């Protein structure tokens, strides 16, 4: 009998480390077009295969194949491509600005641009996203928040609508359906469920879209969100961005070994999909499917977006310390921008020249926005929101003790 076997602690490891190339077979990919598309009123249990498979539309030749091919015009696709390019350029310019100490800190979304860009196309005005710090593409894909305004937040300058209170990237734009970011990971996930419940309580038609990283799924608020969303059939899309890493830890440390994050949804009674997050068409199509479920009183959908965090965790991080430096180049799902570009070229709706022109245009746009934002100041030049404003908004009306403290500070 095995009874006297000595126990040992299993500590999961990534298949690659600095000096050892990653073996990406752990990802268990399905070919493009291989995974079925059930009707939106499917049961959670029936999505088991979709939670372990991988919904993909774009094949290696840039063709859109299979049941998840969405109806979408080339014009919209070009808009999507532009959103992704804008996000990438925005990130890279902000990173440079951070190195120039114009920003105290920055977090880019390199490699993950398709997810927010395509998802935002599936939402409607009035819906609310509850993002993490890596969903800037949700904002950059739409036009209701200017880049200048975003950059003012990043610079904590006098134009910052958050009055300098928040770390860079902790945006809040209610009017654009973008919930205030918290520095504490995962808290927004259950809040999104509450927001969706509120819409249902009021008999409205708005839905919520919740965002979380693979690593943060280990926080209680993730599971609690699944429980509440299931119990009350909340109209919410539960997005898990599995970019394989959480700072220095591999997704297996969050529980991704030998299972998927989508499978957790199924276990909780939630219809769940695992989707190629670097495939703009797959993201759009799966997002629409989930949004329609939510709007039809069919309750929550969990979607695991499989992607790769191509850059460092943040401007304070150096990933070459814990993973192979060339990992992204070898990631089997490729670069979302290159893939949509190839598709557009494949359907004769795009060219290299147009692509380059668009990139240049967007770059100029970002550069101009940065310049304008800088005119409102930065931490460097001290043109920051007043110290006096520090005491506001703690309460709706300032209580006596805060008046007194403001006086003490002499501002």
């Amino acid at each position, binding site marked *: 009998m095995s009874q006297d076997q000595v126990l040992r602690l299993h500590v999961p490891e990534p298949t690659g480390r600095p000096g050892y190339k990653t073996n990406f077979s752990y990802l268990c990919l399905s070919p493009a077009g291989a995974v079925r598309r059930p009707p939106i009123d499917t049961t959670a249990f029936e999505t088991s295969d979709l939670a372990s498979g991988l919904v993909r539309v774009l094949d290696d030749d840039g063709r859109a194949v299979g049941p998840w091919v969405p109806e979408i015009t080339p014009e919209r696709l070009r808009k999507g491509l532009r959103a992704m390019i804008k996000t990438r350029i925005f990130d890279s310019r902000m990173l440079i600005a951070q190195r120039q100490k114009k920003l105290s800190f920055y977090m880019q979304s390199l490699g993950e641009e398709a997810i927010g860009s395509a998802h935002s196309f599936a939402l409607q005005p009035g819906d609310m996203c509850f993002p993490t710090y890596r969903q800037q593409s949700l904002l950059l894909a739409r036009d209701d928040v200017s880049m200048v305004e975003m950059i003012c937040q990043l610079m904590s300058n006098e134009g910052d609508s958050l009055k300098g209170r928040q770390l860079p990237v902790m945006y809040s734009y209610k009017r654009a359906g973008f919930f205030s970011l918290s520095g504490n990971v995962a*808290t927004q996930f259950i809040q999104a469920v509450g927001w969706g419940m509120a819409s249902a309580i009021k008999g409205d038609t708005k839905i919520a879209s919740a965002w979380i990283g693979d690593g943060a799924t280990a926080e209680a608020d993730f599971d609690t969100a699944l429980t509440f969303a299931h119990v009350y059939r909340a109209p919410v899309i539960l997005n898990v961005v599995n970019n394989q890493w959480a700072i220095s830890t591999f997704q297996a440390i969050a529980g991704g070994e030998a299972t998927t994050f989508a499978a957790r949804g199924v276990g909780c009674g939630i219809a769940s999909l695992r989707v190629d997050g670097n495939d703009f068409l797959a993201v759009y199509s799966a997002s629409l499917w989930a949004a329609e479920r939510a709007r039809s009183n069919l309750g929550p959908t969990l979607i695991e977006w499989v992607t790769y965090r191509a850059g460092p965790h943040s401007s304070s991080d150096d990933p070459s310390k814990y993973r192979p430096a060339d990992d992204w180049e070898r990631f089997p799902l490729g670069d979302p921008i290159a893939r949509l570009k190839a598709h557009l070229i494949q359907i004769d709706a795009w060219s290299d020249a147009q692509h380059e022109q668009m990139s240049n245009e967007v770059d100029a746009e970002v550069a101009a926005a940065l310049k304008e934002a800088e005119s409102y100041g930065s931490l460097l030049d001290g043109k920051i929101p007043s110290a006096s404003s520090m005491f506001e908004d703690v309460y709706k009306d300032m209580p006596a003790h805060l008046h007194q403290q403001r006086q003490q500070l002499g501002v």
Partner: protein
Amino acid sequence: MLTKSSNMEAAGETPKTTSMTMIQALRSAMDVMMARNENVIVYGQDVGYFGGVFRVTDGLQAKYGKSRCFDAPISEGGIVGTAVGMAAYGLRPVVEIQFADYVYPAFDQIVSEAARLRYRSAGDFTAPITIRMPCGGGIYGGQTHSQSPEAMFTHVCGLRTVMPSNPYDAKGLLIASIENDDPVIFLEPKRLYNGPFDGHPDRPVVPWSKHPMAEVPEGYYTVPLESAAVFRAGKDLTVLTYGTMVWVSEAAAIETGIDAEIIDLRSIWPLDLKTIVESVNKTGRCVVVHEATRTSGFGAELVSLVQEHCFYHLEAPIERVAGWDTPYPHAQEWAYFPGPRRVGAALKRAMEA
């Protein structure tokens, strides 16, 4: 109670009152607010069909439907987390934590989220939530049905912390809390649910029906936040307290014959500093009383405020009477509870110093 500061709905007419227990008064507050404002919703563990383990929400589901009063999973974090989301949507959730002892799983959502949402979003989103929870001992509840965690909340900027000591205040403060645009921690001394309690467990229980403070208007009124009540006027010294300890302090004053002025804070934080300072400057002596454990309890903040604002009027060290720095034991409940004997001894020390 000497001052009954409150805002009646119709200034002119005398409102119809009924004798209510604290439970009935709290229920009436939610009932009034649910009727007035359809964004007010109520949920929590066992609060829907059953009406709550202390029956505070009894009847609300039947009256307002399952969308506005419902049962929640046993997840305090989920309850407060969803409430933050609902508040961001525009609702005014009033949620129940079954016992204050069980609030800790919701701590992150309270401290990092509800309390900070307005600030971090510069007013873009707000969290007008009321989090009700029974607190305090005296019912042989043992260490996880007896706690008084108010001090922790007072250390969190952005929160309001409130604790009533009688049915009239309970209803008026709860309505004010629901209407308030900040998140409010609303602590209900469970030992006062059915009657005042002077700290003598051996004496017969007095029901609220015998007490004038149980005469509660049936309709809308508020007891404003940040306003303390002079529960008992006196000249010898000032007792700063709230919740059950208001009654215990009164008993101690009577039993020692010391003419104590008892201030019932009602709003623990932000508080009514003026009433406190005026009283202490008048009496020159101060005793702070609460049931929570002593160290870093809210009593410490009260002592600090008093010594900062009344230093030159103080004739004796400020005394603190509080729960011991141990968990609330089951069998030794009455050795733990800061009863009239311990409060009385502190009053005497303060007078003799």
